[in-house]
């Protein structure tokens, strides 16, 4: 990861098959209450030939995040690597961020493990929150902090077709660029096809 790395998700809709592996992996990894969808798979024109496609959506960790701009209590913060996080102790659950978000990412639990009624919950890119890294409190409020452990976020790690890619935006775009460039160029097999991670 370079000094100027900015972490991004990308979902290749030509590969997404609406298997929901990402949403289940997310829910299991963070022990989410049923009904909280930090990530969801959206399918458009279901059942219509030539039109149906699916895409996995969560917080897009925007560079100029609208949620951060509209938050009346300023609970959001953007890490140096671009991951957009928020402080649940500061959040008042007003829902402004939900109106501002173009992707419907903010979730508002009413009960369950995340305790405080109505405080906003969203994808953390598996990077936890402002609490001490990998502390019990961080885990309880924000779920796993896989990034701190050097692990890929649970959703992308689970993706069965490698449709969902996450990482430094330059790496993400390189992977996708290679995918596009290799179209129709023939199958990759040993000794050329060793780069397994996102092929």
């Amino acid at each position, binding site marked *: 990861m370079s000094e100027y790395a900015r972490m991004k998700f990308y979902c290749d809709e*030509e*590969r997404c*098959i*609406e*298997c*929901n*592996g990402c*949403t*289940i992996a997310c*829910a*299991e990894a963070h022990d989410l209450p*049923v*009904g909280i969808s930090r990530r969801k798979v959206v399918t458009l024109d*279901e*059942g*219509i*030939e030539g039109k*149906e*496609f*699916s895409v996995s959506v969560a917080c897009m960790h925007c560079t100029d995040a609208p949620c951060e701009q509209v938050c009346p209590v300023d609970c959001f913060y953007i890490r140096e690597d671009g991951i957009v996080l928020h402080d649940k102790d500061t959040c008042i659950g007003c829902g402004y961020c939900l109106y501002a978000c173009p992707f419907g990412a903010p979730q508002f639990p009413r009960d369950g493990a995340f305790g405080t009624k109505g405080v906003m919950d969203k994808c953390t890119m598996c990077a936890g929150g402002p609490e001490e890294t990998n502390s019990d409190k961080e885990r309880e409020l924000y779920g796993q902090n896989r990034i701190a452990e050097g692990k890929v976020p649970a959703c992308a790690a689970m993706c*069965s*077709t*490698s449709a969902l890619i996450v990482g430094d935006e330059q790496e993400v775009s390189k992977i996708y660029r290679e*995918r596009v460039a*290799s*179209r*129709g*160029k*023939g*199958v*990759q*097999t*040993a000794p050329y*096809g060793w780069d*397994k991670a996102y*092929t």
Partner: protein
Amino acid sequence: MTNHLGDIQNAKAIIIFGANPAVNHPVGFGHFLKAKERNNAQIIVVDPRFTKTAAKADYYAQIRPGTDIPFMYGMLHLIFKNGWYKKDFVKNRVYGMEDVMKEAKKWTPEKTAEVTGVPADKIIQIATVYAKSTPGTLVWAMGLTQHSIGSSNTRMAPILQLALGNMGEEGGGTNILRGHDNVQGATDMCCLSHTLPGYYGLSDGSWKYFAKSWGVDYDWLTKRFKEKKWMNTKGFTLARWYAGVLAGKAGEDAIHNGGTNLKALFVMGNGITSIAQTAKVKEALDNLELIVLADPFVNEAAVLTDKKDGVYILPAATQFETSGSVTATNRSAQWRSKVVEPMYESKTDHDIMFEMAKRLGFYDELTRGMLLKVDPKTSELKQVKKTFKWPEDATNEIARIIKTIGLTGWTAERLKKHQENWHLFDEVSLRGIGPMKGEYYGLPWPVWTETHSGSPVLYDIHRPVAEGGMGFRNRFGLEHDGVNLLAGETSAPADSKVPGGYPEITAKNIESVLGITLTEDEKKRIGKNWKVDISGIIAQKCMEAGIAPYGNAKARAKVWTFPDPIPMHREPIHSPRPDLVKEYPTYKDKPNHYRVDTQYASKQGEKDWSKEFPINLITGRLVNMNGAGVETRASKYLAALSPEMFADINPNLAANLGIRDGDMIWIHSPDGTKIKVKAHFSYSVAEDRIFLPMHFAGHFQGEDLSDKYPEGTRPYAVGESANTVTNYGYDIITQIPETKGGLCRIEKAKEV
């Protein structure tokens, strides 16, 4: 699969009949997508429903359920007419294609369109693309098999591949996607009622071979049966065991079971609602004396039955609490390690069986085979130890005995080495590097010897036998109707000592076919033929000569012992097209079909079913569920994706019936059963059919059975079982139920 999942990346065209890998094999489907991206492979989906796989396809044909044979004949019509078939291949490696050509002549695009419901120009387009994009792989699953003509369907597909010369090619083949973990292994190891393990038949010769290999007395084995003839008689199948209980009641099919009905049922990890006719299954459960259900979860059989006594639930351990080999869909073995010891009071499946055997008094006989080894000097079986080590000794026993599908090389030691060296294999070719060089991942069978490479692509004559090459098996004699059944010139595997076809190898013909002379010692030790040669001499000599022990013959397009020697279209037992039932009627009734008298013509001709039941009914799976859903419905997150049972219905059909999205509807079957489910609008189904997911249980004909689950075991999602309304109808050879093409009537449920 003749090939393997990674090999699909080599395909230039992928045609999928009655399979939905994007939903049922999401990880494997990655290979399909890579073939499309990198290889410009044309994906063609032929399915009654616009599936998630169809959403990724280049061409889609919405076929009427049960008309795959006409569709494939329609393709062959054009392939033969335009000379697109591989003439050399057909001449040298196929028997009986002339009869197929004759039948294909009848299936013009127009005729095919009339029967299948697919427009003629689409049939022409698909046939053209598929014939011209070689190698092409043909994929199927239950959508092709679960029909009264399922066995013909599964012969038709290879015939199409043979005509195009797609068999034995990388990127080609017939690739059947197995539906569950280790289904291939379960089949290989004979969770079947008509063979012994490894597809050895039920003849005395097979029994004697196994008696010897297990180290038990043949007469003792014989005495385990009521009379000796039952050793040579097929048993009941999973599809129709219920008939064995219900026979004798009014309206039930008669059975041939030694004068007695079935009285006890022992279930190990089978979802009982995953086969057709749940109402009959329930009635059978109610009438049994004893039900034992060994399962990590509460098997729905316990909930479905009204029986109060004699129902036992044994907590079985999961796959994480045991170890051993499982067989993947492509014939590869994978070794699994135990993650944790069996939790609480649960026991592994094999421990449950061992305890049963102890109490039934044959534990020693059951386990003795694990103590034996072939003496390399004398080729005699010898007891080499006093106690066995599970599962290694079981794996080694399998390797020692099963020659038919070539499991000789599957020793526990080798399989573990493959598990430990995953990273040294290429996903597309399965080839190993470094210490695994010369082996294919998981040693796909046949693995003829303890040092053989495994065979990633069946019937591939481009490689030497020692490196996984082979022709077609010589299984059905040397000639038929005066035609030589052995393969023609130029069709021997690479580096073969014999240029063309040759018979399966026996002690008698080995010297003449291989052109060798055996020593006196070898002559003394060699077994009668390659299937029972425990000395390993036949396999070893064959490898040296580049010869496949099972011979090199022609694939047969014509099976002269079947009711339809070449596949013929026959309408489903319950067809929406009475006009076509007249033209393509089903078979005559079949007596004693796996011990049950089975109705075909009499059921189909009972009345015009389509008048009362005008809607086609198809079933299938959801991505978040598995089998009968016993396990997956008990996961809160998976259950949340499909919390209740539903039916996909086309909005136009629904609107005509006054049904709105989300309304509860009744679905009635010709068998007099019904289920109450939620209507889910979807354009993925045509206006003449509905789709039901097959994973639900816990409701029965409108009644909620939730209170029958033992406390704390009710799954998060319960609902009606689709199979309560799947129709009567069974395949003529295999007896698989006809769940992918029946009829129903739907109506809006009155609000309570």
